[in-house]
């Protein structure tokens, strides 16, 4: 079983603004005659440096929210600001820059490059963000997620959980101040999941904003703030019920 080494956090974190502001954001999908309201009038303001967990049932709009924040998608109406930049008026080049230097994504379905090894996939994140010490960062982050021994493996040679960890390492390697994670512990066993959460929490403590989407109510106990979505509406927003727990207290 992997025990993750304690991780020095990236020094660049927190150096830039990490504010997230959503005002009256709607995201509708039209399919034939029906309109799916994936998000409907969502207001959300996240201060700098927070560990935010987004809860909600399947289909409640969690991934849609994350896509909007990550500048992968544009809202049907409403405004989204990221570190002070209005995404709805940003040019294509600005949005690209934001994705490169402000947010980084951990996808629900990993999306590793099948043509690159685990290490190279991580290195990709560091390269895109333009980090000079990309090679060192990649090796270090891969070690943090406990996969130093699988550096030369291709995605199809890794288990689902290992692929998940490579995807997380790739996002961490960018060093960007806002981390967006879609079900990062979904494929992981308890202990590895806890280790990953620890890693993400440390990022938040070091000054990043971390947005974690999950079904798992237990995880929300370690959050600074819990947001709950239901059918596209924000139905709850506040600190975890019963106060913030220590990671070691989690059980699932």
């Amino acid at each position, binding site marked *: 079983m992997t025990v993750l080494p304690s991780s020095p956090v990236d020094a660049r974190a927190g150096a830039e603004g990490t504010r997230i502001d959503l005002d009256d954001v709607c995201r509708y999908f039209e399919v034939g005659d029906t309109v799916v309201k994936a998000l409907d009038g969502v207001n959300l303001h996240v201060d700098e440096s927070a560990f935010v967990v987004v809860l909600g049932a399947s289909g409640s709009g969690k991934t849609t929210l994350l896509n909007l924040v990550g500048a992968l998608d544009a809202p049907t109406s409403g405004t989204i600001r990221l570190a002070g930049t209005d995404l709805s008026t940003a040019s294509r080049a600005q949005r690209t820059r934001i994705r*490169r230097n402000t947010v980084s994504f951990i996808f629900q379905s990993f999306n590793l490059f099948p043509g690159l090894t685990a290490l190279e996939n991580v290195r990709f*994140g560091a*390269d895109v963000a333009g980090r000079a010490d990309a090679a060192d960062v990649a090796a270090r982050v891969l070690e943090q997620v406990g996969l130093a021994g699988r550096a030369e493996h291709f*995605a199809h040679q890794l288990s689902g959980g290992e692929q998940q960890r490579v995807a997380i390492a790739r996002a961490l390697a960018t060093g960007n101040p806002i981390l967006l994670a879609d079900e990062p512990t979904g494929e992981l066993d308890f202990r590895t999941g806890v280790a990953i959460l620890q890693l993400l929490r440390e990022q938040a403590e070091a000054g990043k904003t971390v947005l974690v989407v999950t079904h798992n109510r237990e995880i929300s106990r370690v959050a600074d703030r819990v947001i709950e979505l239901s059918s596209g509406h924000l139905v709850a927003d506040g600190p975890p019920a019963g106060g913030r727990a220590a990671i070691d207290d989690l059980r699932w």
Partner: protein
Amino acid sequence: MVTSRGLWVRWSWRDLRGRWVLVTAISLVIALGAGTYAALLSTSAWRRASNDASFALLNTHDVRVRLSQGSTVAEGRLAAVVASIPSAASVLGVRERLVVPTQVSAPHDLLVPGELVGTATGTDAGVDDVWPSAGRLPGPADDGQPVVVLDRQFASANRLPATGEVVMSGGARASYVGLGQQPEYFLSSGGQAALPFLSQRSFAVVYATLATAQALTGAAGQVNDVVLTLRPVDRRDPAQRPVSQELLADQVAAELRSALAGAKPAVSAVVSTRGELPSYRVLYDDIAGDAKLWRIVALLVLAGAAFAALNLTARIVEAQRREIGIGMALGVRPAVLAVRPMLFGTQVALFGVLLGVAVGWLVAIPLKAVLVEMLPLPVWVTPFQVDVYLQASALGFCLPLVAVAWPVWRAVRVQPVEAIRVGHLAARGGGLAPLLRRLPSRGRSYRQIPLRNVLRTPRRTLLTVLGIAAAITTLVTTIGFLDTFNATLDDAQHELLRSAPERLNVSLTAVEPADGDVVRAVRALPETDTVTAGLMLPVTAGRQDRTVDLLVEVLDDAALWTPTIESGTAHGGIVLASKAAADLHVTVGDTIEVTHPQASPEGLQTARTVMTVAGIHPNPMRAFAYLDPATATAFGMSGATNYLTVTPASGTSATQVQRALLSIPAVASAQAVRTTTEGMRTGLDEFIGILQIAALVTLLLALLIAVNTTSIGMDERARDHATMLAFGLPARTIIGLAIAETALVGAAATVVGIAGGYGVLVWMAATTIPAVLPEIGVVATLSTTTVLAAFALGVVTVAAAPLFNIRRLSRMDIPSTLRVME
């Protein structure tokens, strides 16, 4: 069950609509293959039908007797010989003729060598009739009058009016009242005047009645040629021993030969059958030879289409691989799973075949135009070739199905768990990519993605490379033919112009003393500088059962021009073209038997002499052969000449010398060597015309395959590209990566394609071209331009194709792409 069948059809229909651009592109590839195939092969049927109709329309002779150059006999004598043979009853029509080489001065200041063909008029069945394409034919009232018809092709090549005036050698003036064609001159052979490779543009045939020709040439009552047709053989009549028209013609020819040899005095003549008529032989032989050429070009196009189809469908099936795996996990039988891709293949095939008929029809339009332009026959029949189209359609229909069947078969064989596993196929074993691991990875990690992607899936890369390579092979082969012909002509030109490039070749109407009046008159012309008197004679060289027709020129030491001697010497025997030596299977030092005209006290007769091959010259034209005066004594013409080589006096143009020579009646023709070499070029116009159309189609196909393949590649990388976009990699960087990847594939494909094209060309130059054009020794040649063009197409076009995707990429719906591509 009905519902479920409906589901499969709907599903594959959805596949089709989802990729309609791709489907259209691949259908178009199939259509280009099948349509071009059908159109190219239809030309054979059109040409055969048109030849049949044209030769029949003008009662083309079955047998012809031609006296040796310069000799004539009294009118009626040749007809009497024909009447005297045992098979005289089989003869249907007989025409005595006077065919005289001449120089023709035509409107637009033209002055060219040519031939005056005077044919006896008669009431019996016609032979070698003239078909009027414009104006009229001379009527009975014009008999003996200076009224003639000018050759249609000469007139149209020089844009002459349908009526006008011509002046022939010796100043004989005649008005032409129309334009016409005769079977012998459907393709200009350069005529009897011993100057080879005269093009239609620079060789004028003038048709007249016999009496008119005699009057114009001062040869009253003389003929030198007789043509005859034979009664159709009745195959049902067992009494008719020769069972075919050809055998009957051979028999009559043999009888005529012995009758002529036995005549007192003996008549030196060449007896030939219709099958030996150059225009007839070339027009028919060309069809089979050309068909071979076109079939190979068409098959190459189809092969390119096949690879492209295989590529596309293999990829579609691979994309459905996971679904197939899920189906297998749910217990669906493989045969049922195959239905969807097979239906898809059928739709592509049907679409391709329907488009193919349209493409075939479109390609046929310029093909017909080239044929009618290059092969002006009196009758052109170009019916729609149903059988060829069916054949092409069957091919076009089966190819995509085979292309589907193979990957489907592969897909249903794997374990379901393998098929379901995400990215299994895309990443199987990492392909050859692990080989790269040892390379020090310099620079950004994603810079390695292009090479990785290429190596990761070697089979798919190979398919892509072969698909593009097939298109480039076709292109290189087609353009390579043009290069090869051009290089061959350049070689010939280079050889003929290696010294005294301004010289003119002058043929005389008869054999004259070398120091006689004619030569003296030519020397006396102020327009001429050096004049050398030589001999040029048509001979046949044989060795065992192989024979080659040659044009022997006797060259003495004072000759203005001598051939390059590749091996051996110029003395002590005959100097052959390397192609002639190869066809006769001889080398320097071997002997050949030469059948040639020989002067004797009784006149010209045919003799056989064994000669040693003294040397080999590099001119690709097989017919050119040279003799030193000592060996030429076998002709019995020492001190005689029928062929002069003249250089113009300084400040005199070739045209001025030609005009001056025209004033001497014994001069049959004069042509600058430069013009000769240009004439050779025109001879290949038909080939070049059709090849250009084929090259254009191939270019289109290559472009289509290149763009198609690349856009499939872009589709396959959509998920990677979406992830890169999500990480903030700019679209132009991603396009750059895609370009690097396609450029790698394109470069590999180009190298394979050029090598393949050159291979096919070399093979064709060794097998097909000698069968189509035996008179020319060609060496497969690819010009730098062709190689560069192929490279530009293979690398630049293929690499540039991702640029078309910039818009799509920068507007990509990233979340959807990432969701769906799962």
